[in-house]
């Protein structure tokens, strides 16, 4: 199961609640404003880092670049649109929108 988050964690609790439901082996993809959850030094970084002990977190490169985010939490994996498609093809999707 691939969980997807597309809202800023500073506006909604989506990222936080998603992390509560993610099973250990399920990856998370951050896209659109969800990529703000991948920024290093933010108030959500500790929560994201804790989750990354158990799950892989991806961020959509195009959305990261569009927002000028160049300082991401170490270990966040960037995927482009093709990688997004691969992830969706490999997993069922749980859109945490």
């Amino acid at each position, binding site marked *: *199961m691939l969980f997807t988050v597309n809202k800023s964690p500073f506006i909604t609790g989506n990222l936080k*609640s998603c992390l509560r439901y993610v*099973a250990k082996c399920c990856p998370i993809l951050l896209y659109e404003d969800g990529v703000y959850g991948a920024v290093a030094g933010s108030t959500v970084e500790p929560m994201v880092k804790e989750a990354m002990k158990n799950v892989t977190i991806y961020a959509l490169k195009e959305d990261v670049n569009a927002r000028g985010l160049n300082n991401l939490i170490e270990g966040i994996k960037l995927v482009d649109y093709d990688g997004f498609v691969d992830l969706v093809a490999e997993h*069922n999707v749980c859109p945490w929108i």
Partner: protein
Amino acid sequence: MVEENIPDEQSEEDKTKFLFIMKKSPHGSTYPQEGLEVILIMAAYDQTINVLFTDDGVFCLKKGQDTKGIKVKDFSATFKVLEQYGIEHMYVDRQSLEDRGLKESDLLTGVELVDSEEMREFIREQDVILPF
């Protein structure tokens, strides 16, 4: 004589597992009402359907909603009868409830309180997730 070709009834294992995740408050958008309509439509197809209320979605189940003043339909009553439509379980996330100062007694009947840890495996097992 015409031979009737009636397919065997689908076994439980063959049914597609649908989970509706209701995570939005009832009157801030049309999502929950539309979700409810989709649940009722899907109920006609004899598949496995469960519903999880989490985040602000737990407000959909609050007792005593009186929507006359805002001139919209009070659809909360419909959640009470979902069981009669063959919906298997209506799960409510305990943490979301507590975070919002609600207790089980504040909710409409027929729901089951669960912890998100219990739901992790359950979500993984689903074939289709529909978020509202």
